[in-house]
């Protein structure tokens, strides 16, 4: 599903050169649920951005579902994000001026899905996260946990095979966090591959496979419960 070989990312300013990722190797199989942990500044977000095709990498090779991401132009990268990847952000990233229905609709519109099909998918995904009755509400009328569920519904509506979650429970209390985690687990059981970046070790332990990023490289996979051979770089 996801195959990173020798990925490096260098941020260059006039004065400073920062190596955010160095010779990063990772293979994620279809249907896996991986938790990525690591201290602040370790490169977790950079890894997530590159894995999510949100920013380019400096060196290496990244194959997502067999597609060589490094060879794509900007439009193709946008299409990959739209069609193959679902995102769940720490801050939910809902558009405040759009109601829940319209928020979930955003990626479907970019995919050019016709209105009746959009409607079906939106209602289905809002139903899945338990918020179908609040489709006309604005995000600010919901609690943090509900907003994150809307963000999950938005990610699910596109039926992505690959879900990226960036601290999905970071802004939630423990009860809400547990509910969101259960939802992610359910989505994984339904077949989606999930990579979740988190600071929360308890949450990470619930993922079948863990990797730890330190100084831009995978440093430890002791918490994994999956196949250690899948972790290429240590």
């Amino acid at each position: 599903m996801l195959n990173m070989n020798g990925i490096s990312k260098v941020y260059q300013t006039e004065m400073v050169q920062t190596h955010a990722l160095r010779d990063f190797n990772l293979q994620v199989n279809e249907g896996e649920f991986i938790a990525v942990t690591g201290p602040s500044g370790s490169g977790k977000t950079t890894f997530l951005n590159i894995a999510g095709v949100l920013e380019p990498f400096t060196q290496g090779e990244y194959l997502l579902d067999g597609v060589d991401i490094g060879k794509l132009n900007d439009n193709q990268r946008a299409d990959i994000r739209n069609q193959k990847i679902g995102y769940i952000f720490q801050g939910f990233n809902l558009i405040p001026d759009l109601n829940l229905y319209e928020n979930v609709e955003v990626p479907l519109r970019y995919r050019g899905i016709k209105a009746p099909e959009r409607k079906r998918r939106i209602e289905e995904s809002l139903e899945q996260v338990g918020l179908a009755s609040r489709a006309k509400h604005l995000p600010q009328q919901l609690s943090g946990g509900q907003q994150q569920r809307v963000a999950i519904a938005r990610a699910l509506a596109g039926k992505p095979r690959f879900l990226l979650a960036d601290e999905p429970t970071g802004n939630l209390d423990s009860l809400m966090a547990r509910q969101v985690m259960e939802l992610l687990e359910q989505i994984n059981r339904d077949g989606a591959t999930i990579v979740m970046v988190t600071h929360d070790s308890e949450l990470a332990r619930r993922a079948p496979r863990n990797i730890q990023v330190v100084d831009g490289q995978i440093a430890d996979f002791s918490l994994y419960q999956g196949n250690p051979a899948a972790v290429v770089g240590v």
Partner: protein
Amino acid sequence: MFEFKPILNALLRAKSGAILLLLQIAITTAIVSNAAFIIKDRIAYLEQETGLPEQDLFQAEMMMYGGDIDLDKQIERDEALLRNIPGVIDAVHINAVPLSGGGSGGSYTLLPQDQVSQSVSAAYFLADNHVLNTLGVELVAGRNFEESEVIVSNDGAAIAKVALITQAMHDEFFPEGNGLGQTIYRENDPVKIIGIIKLMKGPWLNDKRKDRSLIFPHVRPRTFQKFIIRTKPNERATIMRKIEDVLLAEYPHRVVNSVRGLDELKAKYVAEDTLMVRMLMVLIVILVMITALGIFGLTLFNINKRLKQIGTRRALGARKSAIIRYFLVENALICSVGVVVGSLGAIWMGNKLMALYSVPALSASYIVITSLLVIVMSLLAVVGPAKRAADISPSIATRSI
């Protein structure tokens, strides 16, 4: 594809910025369409055909203070002197100068004053039979004065019995076109129309009488005198420079107090209108620039306010073109409502101007053209910021701002 509905819904939920922009566009549309219409109207007024070769004509105004001369004879000598200057086509003594803003007028009727009949007000000129050639105007019917018809008298009771009238005045009295040879009346004095002048503007361009003039064959020898001189093309300036010396050499007891070209006199007369046109043009430019800057600034502000949102849209699969389209559509929606409101404002403003300042009724085409220009300007103003928005990296969605 164009996301009209969600954009409209979003605008309706966050109205303040949109309303500000909408008002700015509406005000610009209302003011610019009226200003453009007034400019067009004033330019038409400033550039109206006068029927006179303004570049070749000039006036010489003087005061005779010597008590030792016969003014009748002196005028004859002066006219002869002026006509003989090399480069002069003709010259004439006259009571008023066309386009200068100063002259005489009166009412004329189809029947004597004591009977009810149509009345037409008009400017009148008093000059001899050189007037047509000097002014360079064209007779479309009839004849010029004969020398024998010219009255030289300062006596108010001396009244010419014939006159040349302009086509516009003729058409007022005789719309059927049969005025030549007919008689009109100045109070109870009959005046026979012997010739019709195609076009000759009177002294007042900004007046309903501007096209209605009569010329009587009459020379009034007064101490304050005016001559109009017509020169060959490009020789006027040279002759104007030496005219005072020539006149003083002929008779020194006079003061030549004004030697001015007809175009200069006209420019002075229409100076306020010229200034108004320039000010309105500046107003339009400033207003359009302010609006364009306003749209540019507000779009930039909106983009900076929505960095995360734009990044999120990019992360969710928006191509750069979709982001640009979003801002263009958003702006077009605001702008469309703005120009509709502005068009209504323009009509209201036009009616007010018409009622208060006698400005002609605003033509709908000005509103339409202004609206289109405002929409184009508005879209152009938003292209730059929209491109900037499209360049926002999708990775901003995962960063803290």
